[in-house]
């Protein structure tokens, strides 16, 4: 059913291999020194080079915000669009050109506030595009207002007495609309980020990746308590398909289900009874439960929450077109002009 290809691999005989440097555009990168976006940019460029992706068939599309400057720095086709609307341009482009590999770069404000509607409908349709949502829990480009993922009570320029908004969870949203590939990674772990990006690239359908990204100016250290090396073992849970869920130093702790509730249990040397990760589960229940786990009660899960096969929007569109053409025959413009009934004036 799925006619489109996510990636067009470089035929080695025809062209020389591409390197990470080939994906670097000539434009000066203008993020703040120390911004987490640098690490993500480098990881994406390296991942595409590692997969020998063809630059000319790759398009990066973004909205507005710090993260949305991303396409300018990629030596591929790129489109820096308007606030929140990147998924709509990506959808239109994918419909017109299913053979292209299309990546959307967005942020917590761009993707979940102004662009929330497009995000959910794009994921719902399972358009074969990759969406990277850089979550820094703050508005950076507009200089420090709270975002839809900011924690309640956060004091920002627009909330001097603390925000009274309840935050939204990007992964809960993606799973709620039946996302076929849902993952989380962090700008502080290049290896993990490379693994997740590669998995996303190879997924047929909408691949949604939340990337914890540090805003060094307006929300520095937002994820420090989870991702910093010293605390990571106890505060982060790295998911692996088919493996029991363990964390802590040397896997000393694990997750066991008590009914539908996850419990943290002592796991040194014993994995039986622990919850085993199943990213391919047809129902998103387990993935959703994982997406609800947060500090301080639980470790924060990283990795691929869900990866299922499902016909893509663009694939079904092309298939329907072929079926209709087989049934009705190739279209004829003169017949179209004639319409259902004609008469002749002599």
């Amino acid at each position, binding site marked *: 059913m799925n006619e489109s290809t996510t990636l067009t691999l470089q035929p080695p005989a025809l062209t020389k291999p591409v390197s990470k440097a080939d994906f670097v*555009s000539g*434009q000066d990168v203008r993020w703040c020194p120390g911004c987490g976006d640098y690490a993500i940019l480098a990881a994406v460029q390296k991942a595409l080079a590692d997969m020998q992706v063809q*630059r*000319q*068939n790759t*398009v990066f*599309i973004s909205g*507005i915000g710090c993260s949305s400057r991303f*396409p*300018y720095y*990629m*030596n*591929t*086709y*790129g*489109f*820096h*669009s*308007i606030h929140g*609307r990147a*998924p*709509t*341009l*990506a*959808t*239109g*482009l*994918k*419909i*017109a*050109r299913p*053979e*292209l590999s299309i990546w959307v770069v967005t942020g917590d404000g761009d993707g979940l506030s102004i662009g929330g*509607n*497009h995000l959910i*409908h794009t994921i719902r349709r399972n358009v074969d595009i990759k969406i990277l949502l850089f979550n820094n829990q703050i508005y950076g480009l507009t200089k420090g207002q709270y975002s839809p993922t900011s924690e309640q009570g956060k004091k920002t320029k627009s909330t001097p007495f603390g925000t009274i908004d309840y935050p939204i969870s990007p992964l809960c949203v993606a799973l709620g609309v039946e996302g076929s590939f849902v993952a989380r990674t962090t700008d502080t772990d290049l290896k993990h980020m490379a693994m997740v990006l590669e998995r996303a690239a190879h997924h047929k359908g909408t691949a949604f990746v939340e990337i914890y990204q540090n805003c060094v100016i307006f929300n520095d250290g937002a994820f420090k308590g989870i991702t910093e090396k010293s605390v990571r073992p106890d505060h982060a849970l790295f998911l692996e398909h088919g493996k029991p869920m363990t964390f802590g130093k040397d896997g000393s702790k694990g997750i066991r289900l008590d009914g539908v509730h996850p419990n943290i249990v002592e796991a040194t040397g014993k994995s039986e009874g622990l919850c085993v990760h199943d990213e391919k589960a047809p129902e998103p229940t387990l993935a959703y439960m994982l997406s609800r786990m947060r500090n301080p009660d639980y470790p924060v899960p990283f990795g691929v929450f869900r990866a299922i096969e499902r016909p893509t929007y663009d694939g079904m*569109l092309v298939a*329907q*077109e072929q079926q*209709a*053409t087989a049934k*009705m*025959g*190739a*279209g004829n*413009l*003169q017949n*179209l*002009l*004639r*319409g*259902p*009934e*004609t*008469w*002749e*004036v*002599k």
Partner: protein
Amino acid sequence: MSNPSTIQSAKKHQQLEKVAIRFAGDSGDGMQLVGGKFTETTAMCGNDFSTFPDFPAEIRAPTGSLPGVSGYQIHFSSRDIYTPGDAPDVLVAMNPAALKVNLRDLPENAILLVNQDAFNDANLKKAGYASNPLEDGSLKRFRFYPVPIGRLNAEALAKLGLPKKDAERCKNFFALGLIYWMFDRPMESTVTWIQDKFKKVKGIADANEAALKAGFFYGETTELIPEQYRIPQAQLEKGLYRKISGNEAAAIGFVAAAQLAGKQLFYGSYPITPASDILHELSYHKNLNVRTFQAEDEIAAMGATIGAAFGGSLALTGTSGPGVALKSEAIGLAVMTELPVVIVNVQRGGPSTGLPTKTEQADLFQAMFGRNGECPVIIVAPATPGECFHMAIEASRLALKFMSPVMYLSDGFLANSAEPWRMPKLEDLPRIHVEHPTVADNFLPYSRDPETLARPWALPGTPGLEHRIGGLEKEDGSGNVSYDSENHQHMVQTRAAKVAGVAKFIPPAAVAGPPHGDLLLVGWGGTYGSLRAASEEARRLGKSVAHLHLRYINPFPSNLGDLLTNYKRILVAELNCGQLLMMLRAKYLVDARGFNKVKGKPFQVVEVLRAIEEALL
């Protein structure tokens, strides 16, 4: 049963040049359907015609209520006609509400045919009648024919053993049969249609056919209606014709444009009255390289259209005024990124949700100015339903040639109004030339064609031409982000000059009537028919009046300023409060006057004629 249409009527005949009939009933009564069938038969009879459906925004307002009245008017003639007719010569009213809503439009001595069975106490009350108008003598000024359509229809269908409710639903065909008789029209094509439409439920097909024929025979036998009317064939230009509405013509026009350009057609849209029919029509043509996308909202439809244009499709979106409002920011993006997109605005009454099913021309300023920044787009406006086809090709040609958004201003009247359309031959349609660069050396995404100022359209997938575009100001040539003040002014002026330069590539404006004279009547878009008819009538009355109808509004045709100086007075007639008027006054410093109407209805010929006469005083 013998074929009734071949029966020579025993009644006397009167020959007429033209007639306007209005079918009116409850929105569930099938008035649009019988109006459409009468139109098809009229087309086959060789008359010129123009139709205008007028229906409520509510799908099914309470039965019998005034807001639930749906009407369909057809004007047909043995001469050229331009409008659906100011007032009906014949009104068919299926219930008291339909009578009440439409009676004010009915001139004295017109034929008034009512379904008297629907005039019961309950329906009279719903329509707000204190007494039964059929009995109080108030209808004496008309040729009034009360017909017990409900009862006669039930009797005619009694043998078929249909449930009462199903039989009752056929009464619109009884009324159609009677009108067919009255205007001496053949029933064959409608019978064929009925049998095909209801082929899965033979009982219903036979019942509708029986109702149609019963209506026809009733006309022949009743003593109530003394005569039949004949409208001879019109002298139309030779060729193959079909009936076409503006929305149909626009849809197939864009399919044709894409084929003429050798492009895929992309249509991204969100359902909205009165534009949705374009989406319906295009979604069917999957075997003609047409890809449609029903987006989650108006903004997404515009974004997807821009994405498809970036990918190399002939990309368009269609909506009405409220949708254009939502798309505005993205249209600005298309202006900044200089991508070829067409935005179809089937205008309706505003502001806000306004009058969704009624026509208006009040979105001209929105098309011109409704975006942030200096943000010019090309604007075209078809003048007739058939012209919606040709202007679709024209809009596409300009978008592709100039790498610019084009606003295509249709309206609710054009969208739903139908007329005979002489089909063009494929070989007569202009090919649209499109080029995409492939050479990587010194490629600059914002370099310009010296003649048109268009930038190159390099498509993803082309090796070596990888480039980035976006909504931030572009450096001339390279297209890189630039905040340089000199560059910004240069780019603003360049975008404006590009659109202004379109004037060199469009036909000059032409007037109908004297090249110099007392008055120039100026209009644009869907008011063409009324203005044309009124100006012809004025000339017939000996007045020195010419008519200029603009299809290109931004930029104006380059000879427009000169044309305006050839007349002592200028009258600009629009279904808004004077938008084109203000543009003409601002640009050409002429003392033009406006004739404006915002009632959700097209101009009547007679009111335009009156305005012409007043302007000449």
